[in-house]
């Protein structure tokens, strides 16, 4: 379980929150000029990154406000929470050294970790 530090209410259990997908996706201003492919890009296509990821959460059982979070999807470590409208802060994270590699902690993917050296990064 995550303990999520709501920027409005403070740290609470994840059970109070709902996940709301990738952050910083702006609705196109020129909606009536968009092609079908551009609409598909806005509605469906996501970065789905492995590593640092900016995402929205909703404090459903608390202040009921949306906010943004910077989380490492390779380790589930939460690096920062910030309010809607703010820019994501600079953080230092333990990232995989290769695109689909595993971080040195927390990934749970032992099938891949066992064959690598135990240096920094994807051990």
């Amino acid at each position, binding site marked *: *379980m*995550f303990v999520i530090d709501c920027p409005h209410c403070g740290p609470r259990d*994840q*059970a109070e929150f*709902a*996940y709301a*997908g*990738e952050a910083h996706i702006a609705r196109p201003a020129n909606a009536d000029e968009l092609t*079908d*492919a551009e*609409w*598909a*890009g806005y*509605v*469906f*296509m*996501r*970065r*789905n*990154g*492995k590593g640092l*990821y900016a*995402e929205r959460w909703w404090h459903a059982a608390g202040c009921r406000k949306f906010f943004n979070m910077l*989380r490492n*999807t*390779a*380790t*589930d470590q939460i690096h920062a929470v910030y309010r809607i409208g703010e820019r994501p802060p600079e953080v230092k994270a333990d990232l995989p050294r*290769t*695109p*689909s*590699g595993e971080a040195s902690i*927390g*990934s*749970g*993917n032992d*099938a*891949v970790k066992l*064959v690598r050296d135990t240096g920094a990064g994807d051990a």
Partner: protein
Amino acid sequence: MKRYSALELLREGLRGHTGWRKVWRHPEPKPSYDAVIIGGGGHGLATAYYLAREHGMTNIAVIEKGWIGGGNAGRNTTIIRSNYLFDESAALYNHAFGLWKTLGRELNFNIMMSHRGVLNLAHDDGEMRQLKRRVESNRLNGVEAEWLDAKEVKGFCPAINISPDIRYPVLGATLQRSGGVNRHDAVVWGYARAADAMGVDIIQQTEVTNILTESGEVTGVETTRGTIRTPKVASVTAGHTSVIAKMVDLRLPIESHPLQALVSEPVKPVLNCVVMSNAVHVYCSQSDKGELVIGAGIDAQLSYTQRGNLDIIEHQMASLMELFPMFSRLRMMRQWGGIVDVCPDASPIISKTPVKGFYVNGGWGTGGWKATPGSGHVFADLIARDEPNAIAAPFAMERFVTGALVAEHGAAAVAH
């Protein structure tokens, strides 16, 4: 390929199992191949097998980051069924269903296929209507299905609690009698052995780190063991489809989530079929070893960690207790998570891409295992002919632009 037989089993039994050979080779990667498949799971190995057997493409490599059977192939709950609602899905999953029936014999490998029946429970009037509709739709599509009322459910599966006093009483269920479970390791080992025997190189503990392109066409891959030239690269990596697609600057409508499962201590035979419930949200079967194999829904957040959160476990245990109060004293032995690539319409992507020579088979969400042979079969066809066949065509990624989605959230039977 040296075939297994009862005689050989007897002989090895008598001489202390000293004569078994390695089941597949561990070759060094060659400098070039006719096609490279990224991902040595069930779908990837099935793709390689059918490419070699049906299309004569034997100069191919399967590149696997971990080991065969170490990823999602070994992390699923092995349920086999094809009772999907829409015509497109019924065609795809029933194609796989047909291949499962003879796969063990074909691969000369005991995949322990057990056609013990799959129940999908209904807990309210709306769900009952929806599931009855699915039975009719299944029958129109040639998929075996029937409707059981609560008493018939109890008759078919005596362990289940059909008391009308529980919070979500069992009102009835669909039954696919020929559905069931099999042995996931045996399937991937069997495919690996058969593909290897036809000359396919299975390269384990090697990660693809980049896909090389020249003027919009695939020319090779970079791996942790050097560069390999190839005109065709096929991504079959449950959990990392987006990561692979990003190597050719392709965005996909996929989010990756952990999906957890767990097993109990082994007990004597008590559960004679597969029971799935979408509403109270748990699914359960008993392995041949006696363990209850239990699964439920995905974790809400995007994640590549193969662990998942405990609230999901708590939720699925509560659901299990409601349906089977007798399991309340069972101890759970271990829990694990796999990463599933989820599409917005809960259907997979089997597709060519704008990058010539790059093919994607992914986004199977929570239900990829049952599709393994069919997925490999139609994907091999797509790679070899560069055109999707009738079964694969509705699952091309263009559907997210045209709007012709195959929205199977109900029949996927797990909340996405």
